[in-house]
């Protein structure tokens, strides 16, 4: 009895550890999937239901409830073909548990679900400085007032500094805008004289 104890303990503890590791991992994985917030993140893992697919399947099989379709799509990772196959084979769809909360990819506006990633790079590329810094209003405003003759494109070198943070920001922006607008005026004058 006494020499049986260590030989029983170590391997069984190891087995327990390994088994519980896998159990916990499996538990968290499946839990993670179904509790993913109903946003763009979960879609990549196929756990968020695409309303277009739901619509497509319910048009084919009007007898099915939307909840049943969503439940099946969510479990098979958004595979509409598999759901269709399942219905056609006569097996039918399982009734979702009452606790089932469908994770719909997007509000029903019809916009394709797309994680908000694409609009950011377009801002910085292929854009002139006038639109980048919203200067078109200032150009229109200044078009009546002719700039000083031979407008030296040198930015107003009256250094801008203030103890106040907002004021500093404003001064920097002003120097920046003036630099761009002065260069634009000069270039415009040059183009006109060349014509």
């Amino acid at each position, binding site marked *: 009895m006494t020499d049986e104890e260590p030989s029983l303990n170590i391997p069984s503890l190891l087995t327990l550890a390994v088994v519980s590791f896998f159990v916990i991992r499996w538990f968290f994985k499946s839990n993670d999937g179904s509790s993913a917030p109903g946003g763009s993140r979960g879609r990549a893992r196929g756990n968020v239901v695409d309303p277009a697919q739901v619509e497509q399947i319910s048009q084919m099989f009007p007898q099915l409830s939307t909840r049943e379709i969503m439940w099946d799509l969510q479990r098979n990772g958004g595979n509409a073909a598999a759901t269709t196959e399942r219905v056609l084979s006569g097996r039918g769809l399982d009734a979702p548990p009452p606790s089932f909360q469908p994770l719909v990819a997007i509000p029903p506006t019809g916009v394709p679900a797309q994680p908000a990633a694409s609009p950011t790079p377009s801002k910085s*590329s292929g854009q002139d400085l006038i639109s980048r810094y919203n200067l078109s209003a200032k150009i229109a405003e200044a078009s009546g007032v002719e700039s000083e003759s031979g407008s030296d494109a040198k930015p107003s070198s009256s*250094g801008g500094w203030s103890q106040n943070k907002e004021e500093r*920001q404003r001064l920097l922006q002003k120097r920046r805008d003036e630099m761009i607008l002065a260069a634009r005026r000069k270039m415009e004058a040059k183009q006109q004289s060349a014509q």
Partner: protein
Amino acid sequence: MSTMTQNRLFREYKTLSTSPPDGITAGPVSEDDMFHWEALIQGPEGTPYEGGIFAAELKFPKDYPLSPPTMKFVGGGVWHPNVYPNGTVCISILHPPGDDPNHYEHASERWSPIQSVEKILISVMSMLAEPNDESPANVEAAKMWRERRPEYERKVREEVRKGLGL
């Protein structure tokens, strides 16, 4: 460490604002993030870049000034042998001393904490005037600069006008 970096960036910002070098405006996009600046550089006279204004983004590492910032032209980039097509500037002052992939830069030209944002911007200005043909970042632009100078200059002038919305 981070406070030291921020103080240093703030001091540089103040110097650049109170006595800005000719043709340069630079400062943080917002003072809430001192590690992200934007700079305007005027195209040097007597070059095809003359009359243009070039906007660039400067990103400072957490260990600035030990490591140099990165600099990237924004709003369409700049056609230049030493500027990558995506706008990233490739000049020796932006390279840390230990890192010399091309083995042609002198240690003194490279980044060290005694350099500054002002020195970077002035270096970039002279880079615009005098491309370094030895290590082109934009091979196509370098080739055009070497072999078809008039076409190169025409292209740059056109981009200068476009950049100003003309």
